[in-house]
């Protein structure tokens, strides 16, 4: 069974023109001498020919007219690269890379490599002087959550309106 699959695989590669020159020569030799290879090759060539001769499906007669009617109302959109400013993309990417490097750099400077046994943690948190409490106040968090809720409601409203319009359009 494995041999049969292997033979078919090699023959399809040969028929599809994917074999290496050495492999081609080897298959040509087998096709001259081996009857089972000859039989398989004939059957596969027949299959290949039929597949090449299959017909395509045709759309309705009005198809191209429908397409042309639809695009008559449209314009070709400008190429994406004309309105996507690569400098902005690179700037955003650069910002995050610098941020990551900064954090990694800070983290590595805090690791005490000279006395690994003296501290339970390799990172010396005692020298970490950044006071988050100055910036993370409950008022800020509440404002942030309120903005999120308002944005969520706006999005939901927009979504429901679109749904309603679609339903009306399909009924109409």
């Amino acid at each position, binding site marked *: 069974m494995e041999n049969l699959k292997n033979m078919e695989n090699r023959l399809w590669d040969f028929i599809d023109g994917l074999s290496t020159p050495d492999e081609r020569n080897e298959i040509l030799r087998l096709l001259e001498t081996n009857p089972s290879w000859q039989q*398989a090759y004939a059957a596969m060539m027949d299959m290949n020919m039929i597949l090449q001769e299959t017909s395509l499906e045709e759309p309705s007669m009005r198809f191209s007219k429908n397409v042309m009617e639809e695009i008559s109302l449209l314009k*070709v959109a400008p190429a994406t690269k004309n309105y996507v400013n690569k400098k902005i993309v690179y700037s955003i990417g650069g910002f995050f890379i610098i941020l990551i490097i900064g954090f990694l750099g800070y983290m590595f400077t805090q690791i005490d490599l000279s006395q690994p046994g003296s501290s339970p943690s390799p990172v010396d948190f005692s020298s970490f002087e950044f006071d988050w409490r100055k910036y993370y106040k409950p008022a800020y968090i509440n404002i942030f959550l309120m903005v999120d809720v308002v944005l969520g409601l706006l999005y939901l409203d927009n979504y429901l309106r679109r749904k309603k319009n679609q339903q009306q359009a399909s009924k109409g």
Partner: protein
Amino acid sequence: MQTGLPDNELIAQVLKGDQQAYKVLVDRYQSYIFTLAYKLMQSREDAEEVAQDVFVKAYRSLADFKGGSKFSTWLYTIAHNTGITYLRKKKQKILAIDDEKNFTQLESHESDFKSNQVEDKSKKEMVNRAIEMLSADDAQIITLFYKGDQSLDEIGTIMGLEANTVKVRLFRARQRLKDKMEKYFSEEVANLQVI
């Protein structure tokens, strides 16, 4: 007459504002796109809608086609993605490559097919019907390879697969097609027997 112009020249004309040049491209590729869509949708109405959408999308994005690949490859990629999106929207499931789970669906397709066997006498029609019994992926790969004039690399680009994966899938698709033909057209395909 524009009908004999190569794709790239027609595209250049469309980009200059000649909308009629696009009609030549539509006429040139409508059967290919429709066939691909039909293999995915299994419904002429849906396939026509998807095919129309493909040409409209392609027209809108034509300025983004840089000629890095064949126009047909670019167009088939849009067709593949549009078809998949359309199917997702309709919450239909695409038939997987290993289609054991889809046996019931195929069986029902096959029973329709059996009842019409007498009418379908030509070999081409027989193969077309056998391709219809394959999963959407198998049918697409066979169509792109044999009718769409696409290489394994190009099919990989269209379907988002590695060329080697496409090669394996094409091999399996042909095997499955042969099995279907042997099962339902044993007399006609007697000469297609490998062993």
